[in-house]
Structure formats: structure tokens, C-alpha cells
């Protein structure tokens, strides 16, 4: 068979990192429509895994199920041994699984710095009573959070825009801010839903560099993306979906050569263009 499982995957073979996220037999049904059917894949600690496939293949539905925004019809989702199915999104975030959204989603009316401060919610240590009594611990915690927020803004290169209202940012900056908000929540697994859609090539290049920086922090990344240059450039492994099913799973080089993937998604022109 031409499935890339048989092909050598040098990275994975050398360091068999433990499984972080395990999706097993996941199905998602909307009425009569099967959005995702019997999906099984694993994300290993520290790797960048991309989900690709045509629109409607079930990528975003899978994201929504993993992060608790829609219920799974059947199957299991486990992160570091903890079952995530049935948990609320904020509880899932509490386990270190944090996402961004396909449609740009920030706190529009608030300054950039405040956006990141909201993202830092999980790291804050403030009891409501302590807040109302104005205890000094709360003020210290606020100062600590501010430092963390500036650090994150540096990471995504938005320091210069900290005081601006989010709505006034350019599109590319908004997408960076989304990532900053997600990073503030201290993810160990970061799910990015088409983060570079609508970006120009240079912005995409900068974003790829950002992903590399996030990796060095030990964060595992699950990516949904249509930009093949980005997918092939940053991923350790690629899973290709079509009509709710996985049709290929392997390293980028193998995926690009997989005839099923080419037929369903990449297209002959893509292969020819690459020469």
C-alpha cells in the first residue's frame, strides 16, 4: 500500500515521544450529516501535527470536539491520560489544551495588553474576597501578570501596539494577538485553526518563525491550515482528511507524494508546480 506509515519517519523513529493527545474513533454527527467519521490519530509531546483536507472535511469540527465546543457523537479524546469528552471548554483549557478560532476572535473593544491579561486568567492567583479587600497580594499578582503579558507581547512582536484598541490592529496583527491570548493561557497543547489564512507571504513567513519560537517552549501544536508552504514547512507530521475520514498520515514529504492526498486535496497542479 502507498500509505505513508511504511515510509521511514526519521524524527519519530529516533525519539518516540509519548502520546499527548489521543483521538480514537471520533465521530461527529449534525443531524443526518456525518461531519467526522471514525477519526483516529495521535499527537505526540512536542511535535507539530497538521490536519489538512478540503473544506468540509471535518477539520474544524474535530477542533471543536477536542476543545469541548461541540459534543462528540462517539469516540474518545484523551489528553495526557485525561478524558476530555464531556468537559466544558474552560475545563479543557484548564488541562492545558487551548485553541484559536478560524474566524478572527479577539476582545475587540479592549486594548491589546488587556486582551493578553484576560488570557492570563488561569495564571492569576486572586481570591474574590482578597480583591475586594484590596489585599497587597492581589496588587503583587497584578504586577506579575503585567510582566507576563509584556513577555508574551514580545514573543509575538506586538509590544509596540500594547496600548492600542484591538479593533484598530491590522489583520495580520489581529491573528498574532489571537495567538498571544492563547499563549497567555499557558497551553501545553496549542490548537491553531487556519492561523495564516488571509495573510500575505511575508506575514506567513513571520508566523512560521513564531511557531518555531513557541515550539522551543515545549508546547505541542496541532495545526489546521490550507497554506501548504506553511504546513510542509513547520509540521513534523501531517494528517490528511477527506469527507470526515483520515486518508493519509505521515511526514510532510510522504504526504506530498501520496496519490490519495493529491487526488483529494493537493491536486496535480500542486505536484507539477513543485517539480
Amino acid at each position, binding site marked *: 500500500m502507498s500509505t505513508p506509515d511504511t515510509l521511514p519517519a526519521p524524527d519519530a523513529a529516533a525519539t518516540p515521544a509519548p502520546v499527548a493527545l489521543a483521538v480514537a474513533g471520533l465521530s461527529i454527527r449534525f443531524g443526518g450529516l456525518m461531519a467526522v467519521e471514525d477519526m483516529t490519530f495521535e499527537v505526540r509531546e512536542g511535535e507539530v501535527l497538521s490536519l489538512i483536507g478540503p473544506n468540509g472535511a471535518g477539520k474544524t469540527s474535530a477542533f471543536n470536539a477536542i*476543545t469541548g*465546543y461541540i459534543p462528540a457523537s462517539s469516540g474518545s479524546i484523551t489528553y495526557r491520560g485525561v478524558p476530555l469528552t464531556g468537559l*466544558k*471548554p*474552560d*475545563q479543557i*483549557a*484548564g488541562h492545558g489544551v*487551548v*485553541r*484559536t*478560532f478560524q474566524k478572527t*476572535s*479577539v*476582545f*475587540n*473593544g*479592549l486594548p491589546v495588553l*488587556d486582551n493578553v*491579561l*484576560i*488570557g492570563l*486568567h*488561569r495564571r*492569576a492567583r*486572586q481570591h*474574590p474576597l482578597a*480583591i*475586594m479587600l*484590596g489585599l497587597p497580594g*492581589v496588587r503583587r*499578582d*497584578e504586577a506579575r*501578570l503585567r510582566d507576563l503579558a509584556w513577555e508574551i507581547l514580545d514573543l509575538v*512582536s*506586538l509590544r*509596540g*501596539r500594547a*496600548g*492600542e484598541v484591538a479593533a*484598530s490592529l*491590522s489583520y*495580520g*496583527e489581529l491573528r*498574532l494577538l489571537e495567538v498571544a*491570548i*492563547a499563549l*497567555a*493561557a499557558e497551553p501545553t497543547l496549542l490548537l491553531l485553526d487556519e492561523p495564516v489564512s488571509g495573510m*500575505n*507571504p*511575508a*506575514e506567513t*513567513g*513571520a508566523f512560521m518563525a513564531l511557531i518555531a519560537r513557541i515550539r522551543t517552549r515545549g508546547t505541542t501544536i496541532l495545526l489546521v491550515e490550507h497554506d501548504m508552504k506553511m504546513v510542509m514547512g513547520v509540521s513534523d507530521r501531517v494528517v490528511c482528511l477527506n469527507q470526515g475520514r483520515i486518508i493519509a498520515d505521515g511526514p510532510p514529504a510522504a504526504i506530498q507524494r501520496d496519490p490519495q492526498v493529491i487526488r483529494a486535496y493537493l491536486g496535480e497542479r500542486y505536484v507539477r508546480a513543485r517539480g
Partner: protein
Amino acid sequence: MSRAVTLAWVVFLFTLPLWMDNLYFLHVLIMAGIFIVAAMSLNLLLGYTGQLSLGHVAFFGIGAYVSSLCSLGFEIHVFDVPVGLAPKPVWLSMIVAVVFAGLCGWMIGKISFKVRGAYFVIVSVSFAEVTRLVALNWLELTQGPMALNNIPFLKLWLPGIGDIDVLGKMPNYYLVLVVAVVTYVIIRRLVHSRAGRAMIALRENEPLATSVGIDVTRFLVLATVVSAALAGLAGAVYAQYVRIVDPDVFLFIYTVTMVIMVVTGGKGTLAGPIVGGLIFGILPELLRGFEVQPEIQWVVYGVLMILIVYFLPEGIVPAVRDGWRRVGGRSGAPPAQPAPATPAGATPATAEASP
């Protein structure tokens, strides 16, 4: 800078009765102050979590009734078994009122667990109507339309001054002022904390808020509890000031008044309810000073409200703040306009993209 302005205001308000000897105007200020406290508490819900509580007067009324009943004492019969409470000191009654109102807020917050927007409005309006009917019809407890009379006034002991009877205009003015400052400080601290940011996040973008691990329901409940408790405090202060409480404290028009104060002043701003409260709390009395017909008073009131909402949809405080910035009171804002294109890789991006 804003801190200095706040401090100047507080000093002005604290010295006001020393040179203002018009007792009637002092009464107007006391009533406006009580309503401002209630409006500030409403603002925590409406302005920060974005949930419109159209039954907010219920918490105010509950505070007034609970405090009055505790300080007067009561006896009711449950299945012919008398259950009673001996009169308690007013300060204790007021604390009980705050706690009880907070508990009611907790209940409403829990009921509206998944209820947002229009449904939250319906739950809160229904709750206010139920409390009004209870106050009107539970004659044994509330005296119904006969009202609770001769409610004891607050007696305080202050170090250095000794015993004080909070009776008459001047002591009540200071009581209201202290309560207002405390309310302001509590809300200010909440807003500038993790809890307040969680509330604002709920208002701005709930799915995103949950994605970073904010349990929005928990903070909605917290906002409802604090808001209800503070409204209850306003009610308790009101009861011991006017010393008579009837079911009319639950009238819908009082909720509307609070909403008007918050919205015209600027919801989601700390100073908004105060500015709105001063305008709409004092305006009717000022108009009365011109000896115009009552109808004209209400017409002017309505027209002013429409004008504010139409021309300053965000409210007075945000409009003044933006105007202040535009004039250049704050440095940095105007020169920032041409700059944004440069930082954060926006221009290098376009430059590299062109070839």
C-alpha cells in the same frame, strides 16, 4: 491625574454640608446618593458582564425590607407555629440585609446559569415582580400596603467621636457618602482584577473567554452576588433614612431610573453611574425650582435623556474622555495615528511581498 480628580471630588463632597445649609438640597443629594450606589451596583452587571438586570430594584427592596424587619422585629405563623424575631440593632440588620440580598443574587445568578441576554432580562424582571407581590400580600410579615413604619435609625459608635445617631440630614449625608465611596472602591478593585477582566471577557467575547479557561458562569454569579449585595446595602440605608418602607420600593420605574443613570453616564465606566446619577437624581428637583408644571418636568427629563442617548450613545463619561484625548489633554494619542503602519512587521511584510 484621574486619581487627583477623584480625590478632589471626594474632598468637595465631604466638605459640602459645612457650607451648604439648605436642608432640602441636602435631602436631594442623599436620595441621589442612595440611587447612585444602586446604579453603581447595577453597572457591575450591565456595564461589565453585559447582562441587563431589569429587576435590579428587587435587591434594593429586599435590602430595605430585610433591614427594616430585622430592626423592627416580627412575628409570623408557620402552620400556626409562631416564628418571631426580636428587634435587632440597626447595624446588624443592615449587615443581614446585605447578606440576604447577596444570597438572592446568588440564586438569580444560578438560575440564569445558561441564560443570557433577553432571557436574563426576563428572569430578573420576573424576580422583581414576585418580590413586589410578596411584599404587597404577605400582610403578617410586611404589613402590605400599610407599610413598615417607625423604622429605627442607625446608631453608630465611632472612635474619637463616640455615639452618633444617624438621624437628620447631615449624618445621613455622610453615611450615604461613606457607603458610596466604599461601593466605588469595591467595584473599582473588582474591575481592575482577574475577576473583573473575566466579567469583561464574558461581555466582549464569550467563546474566546472560555477558550482560555475562564469559567464565565462562575464570574457571572460573582458579579450578580456583589451587585445584589451592594443594591441591598443601598436599600438598607434608604430604609433607615426615610424610616418607612412600602411595596412601592419595588416599582419598575426605580429599575428604569437606575438603568438610565448607568446608560447615560456611561455603562462599563466607573464614573458613569455617578455622573448619570447626579444628573438624573438632581435634575427633577432643579426643574421644580423653576416652578414649572410637573408635566413639563417630565418632558424635559425625557427629552434630555433622548438627546444624550442619541448624541452620546456610549454615555457622557466615555464621550468626555474621548473629547479630552482629542483636544490633546493626554499626550501620545494624536501622534500615534500615522505610526501604526510601521511596527510589528506590517510594513516589512508589504515590502517583501511586492516582488
